């Protein structure tokens, strides 16, 4: 029989102002199994916890109920108190008198009645609570970072610098992501490539980092501490061990295609490095356009290669490795504005470009060598219009969220136009200017002083008239329509999750939010964790971010990974689902509803009702993967699968107590 101690917390006046705590404590003494009850101002405080420990010893208590705040706040605190008092920590039960009672009610009398009921239910459950014990599992001291943009590189470097092994996987032929594509970074205007390419080199040279460029994660099994990951190395058609990166092949290749890295503004060969400072600084062959691979003609690159590194027979390779932690750093893409913005010409006007295309154009190592040119005729634009929030903050049409970086990069672009073309006219159509960052607003003010004309309002139409673009919009501050004749229009398009990130999340075993961004475990308190233990988030894959925030978050994710990898054993959560094979009929509904892919059907040797040896199918829970959400237990009709600490009989006991 349980000897339950009930402790009612006042939480200062948070609970005590609305609930008569002494009365609740008194009522609790009449509940089955309760031998001791008391109320106290702050149960979670040091004296409060000592009070519980003393009561455990004096009253020989073997189950504890604390009626205070939410278990999210202090369940762990009180479990530790029990452990320190010599009890199994899972003999603890919490009644939430704050969030579920005092904070939501005003009538003290009725709130007290409800509080008594809540405690009654908790005491009933405490009667049925069982001792639970954690087990341990080993931690593979190696981290996987998926995506080698600035977020992935920073996370990999921080983890590697702490002395842990890192495998960094990037699907493109070069690491670096979007940052080296940019010209300058706001608000300091330092050269983006000058601060990102040294990081790329550092990553490549770091003894603890294994770099896998042009590779993709294809399968993830296992759980925190022990993820078994299958990686697909795409066929490069160039042996990077032999290749010296001399670049002769690139100059001789006769087929040219638009360069993705320049967003179609420039051209590249079919054996190519995306840009001059690419890491690895060795080319790959584009199998979709290479004449040798498509038509078996040409073969020039192999002929000119001084080291014989070109190998047209190269094939993709699959291999697996085991990791203790995974960092997702898959970044962002830009909203495909051409698909829905008919008013901006559906991408038909060559002189309507995106902010990222502007970056390539204004970049000294870009396709125009840093000269601003109209893509249509190569002329220098004298009138440039910037349109912000293209796809962002447009819930009816595209995305409801703010893409966060556009206000600042548009101010930077406006500044750059005025800097490079002193007699240019610059107009910025905006909804709000969101410049909440260190030295951000000052930068925006400086752009205004430079002479950029900010027009608050949206653009309703762009059309071509001769070689000019006519931009029609509204100045909502003056309340009148405006029309600007522009040579170049730059759209600040919304950030969206990078292509394929949803599928990757499913492969890794968690679910993105409705916009496709990776969901953090808690928006405030666990911002770099995912609901899947051992999987962390860095950078824009979690939501739109600028570079400083991305780098900071990557460091935070790395700190979490280091914390995990610094342990050799992990304690498991004992509150996981258990399947009872004697009852399980193997219908598999639990498998279908498990969001963590923690349940599988296995074959069990048994005898049938006639004594014949048979193999039957039953559900089996992987306790490393199970997060204890309970979706399986409510799906199981016969209760064959049951959640430790929230067993069906424990919950029924609570419900029954309410009616006693």
């Amino acid at each position, binding site marked *: 029989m349980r000897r339950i101690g009930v402790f009612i917390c006042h939480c200062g006046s948070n609970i005590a102002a609305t609930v008569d705590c002494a009365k609740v404590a008194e009522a609790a003494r009449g509940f089955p199994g309760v031998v001791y009850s008391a109320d106290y101002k702050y149960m979670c405080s040091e004296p409060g916890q000592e009070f519980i420990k003393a009561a455990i010893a004096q009253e020989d208590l073997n189950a504890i109920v604390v009626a205070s705040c939410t278990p999210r706040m202090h369940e762990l605190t009180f479990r530790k108190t029990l452990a320190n008092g010599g009890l199994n920590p899972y003999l603890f039960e919490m009644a939430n008198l704050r969030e579920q009672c005092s904070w939501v009610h005003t009538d003290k009398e009725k709130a007290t009645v409800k509080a008594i009921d809540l405690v009654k239910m908790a005491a009933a459950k405490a009667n049925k609570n069982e001792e639970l014990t954690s087990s341990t599992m080993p931690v593979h001291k190696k981290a996987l970072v998926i995506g080698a943009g600035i977020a992935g590189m920073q996370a990999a470097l921080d983890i590697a610098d702490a002395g842990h092994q890192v495998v960094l996987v990037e699907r493109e032929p070069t690491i670096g992501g979007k940052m080296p594509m940019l010209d300058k970074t706001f608000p300091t205007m330092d050269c983006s490539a000058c601060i990102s390419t040294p990081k790329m080199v550092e990553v490549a040279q770091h003894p603890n980092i294994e770099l896998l460029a042009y590779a993709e994660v294809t399968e993830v099994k296992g759980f925190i501490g022990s993820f078994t990951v299958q990686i697909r190395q795409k066929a490069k058609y160039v042996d990077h061990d032999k290749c010296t990166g001399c670049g002769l092949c690139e100059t001789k290749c006769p087929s040219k295609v638009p360069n993705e890295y320049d967003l179609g503004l420039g051209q590249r060969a079919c054996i190519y490095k995306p840009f001059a400072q690419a890491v690895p600084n060795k080319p790959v062959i584009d199998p979709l356009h290479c004449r040798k691979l498509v038509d078996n003609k040409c073969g020039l690159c192999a002929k000119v290669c001084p080291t014989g590194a070109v190998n047209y027979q190269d094939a993709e390779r699959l291999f697996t490795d085991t990791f203790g932690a995974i960092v997702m750093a898959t970044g962002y893409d830009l909203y495909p504005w051409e698909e829905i913005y008919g008013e901006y010409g559906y991408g038909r006007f060559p002189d309507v470009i995106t902010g990222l295309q502007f970056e390539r154009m204004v970049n000294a190592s870009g396709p125009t060598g840093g000269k601003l040119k109209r893509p249509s005729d190569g002329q220098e634009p004298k009138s440039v219009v910037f349109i912000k929030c293209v796809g962002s903050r447009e819930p009816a049409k595209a995305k409801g969220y703010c893409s966060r970086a556009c206000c600042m990069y548009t101010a930077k672009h406006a500044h750059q136009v005025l800097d490079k073309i002193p007699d240019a006219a610059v107009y910025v159509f905006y909804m709000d200017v969101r410049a909440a960052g260190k030295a951000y607003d000052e930068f925006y003010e400086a752009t205004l002083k430079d002479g950029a004309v900010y027009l608050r309002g949206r653009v309703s139409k762009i059309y071509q008239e001769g070689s000019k673009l006519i931009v029609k919009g509204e100045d909502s501050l003056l309340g009148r329509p405006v029309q600007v004749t522009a040579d170049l229009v730059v759209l600040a398009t919304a950030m969206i999750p990078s292509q394929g990130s949803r599928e990757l999340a499913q492969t890794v075993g968690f679910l993105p939010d409705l916009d496709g961004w990776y969901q953090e475990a808690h928006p405030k308190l666990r911002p770099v964790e995912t609901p899947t233990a051992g999987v962390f988030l860095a950078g824009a894959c979690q939501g739109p971010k600028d570079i400083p925030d991305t780098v900071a978050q990557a460091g935070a994710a790395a700190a979490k990974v280091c914390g995990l990898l610094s342990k050799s054993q992990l304690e498991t959560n004992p509150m996981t689902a258990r399947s009872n094979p004697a009852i*399980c009929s193997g219908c598999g509904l639990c498998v279908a509803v498990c969001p963590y892919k923690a349940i599988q059907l296995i074959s069990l040797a048994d005898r049938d009702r006639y004594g014949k040896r048979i193999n039957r199918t039953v559900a089996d829970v992987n306790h490393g993967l199970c997060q204890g959400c309970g979706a399986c237990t409510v799906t199981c009709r016969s209760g064959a699968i049951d959640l430790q600490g929230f067993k069906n009989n424990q919950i029924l006991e609570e419900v029954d107590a309410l009616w006693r």
Partner: protein
Amino acid sequence: MNAIQIKMREVAGQLLSLGEVDRVIGWEKGRFAHQSPPAFITDETKVERLIWDEYCLTGTAKYLLDDPYRAGKTGLFARGCDARAINRLIQDGQVKRENIVIIGICCTGMSDSVSRQMAAKCCDCTHPTPVVYDLMIGEPVKPVAKPERFKAVAELEQKAAQEKSEYWTRQFAKCIRCYACRNICPACNCRECFADQYRVGWLGKQHHTAENQVFGLTRAYHIADRCIECGECARVCPVGIPLMELNRKLIKDIQQLFGDYHAGVDSETAPPLGRYSLDDMEEFM
């Protein structure tokens, strides 16, 4: 002798003599003229026992669970309702498709043994032609929508909560907890029914209206998105509880909430409450 019956005996004889199956399950004439209980035939010389008349009411599929691990193959005579029941059992992982030879029969409906009118379960039948079969006897009939089968539910919905509560209390006051509804139901295929788990505390053993109601309502929820509408539960209930009204209420709600779903029409489409998707509604959050 009717054509279907002739064909049934012929097919059963062939399957047994060729060794393709080692038993067939169909119907035979029992003690009473107005009843045709299920027949289990393992000997090809006994196929003459098989009959097809207006009283072949009993579902055949659930009998597969009497010995789910038997070695041989079973030839199963299946009407539309039986075929959906087979899909139910396949989807629930209780039988393997390859262990059954389904001899489909295009059924035009059976008669109630007492009233001699078309049986209630057949009046409401939407899929008279088997949805899955290996061999087929008779001319296929197209599925019919039968929205009128929700008439009783719609009428009940109009009543006040108190009236509904009284109605079901009255119905379950009659219940004798014989579990015939559960035992005949192809969706009730748990190894151990919650109703038999006294130690957990779902419900007690005592015979008591409230406990009967817990049993009946919980059973309805357990088969909510998996009920194949064979109507066997209501047919076998010895005290005449209109169990299909409960099932149809849930089917109606599920169709409103999750779209048109007909359990057991195929064995692939997961039941709406038995899958997890990002697009699931979460209006409560």
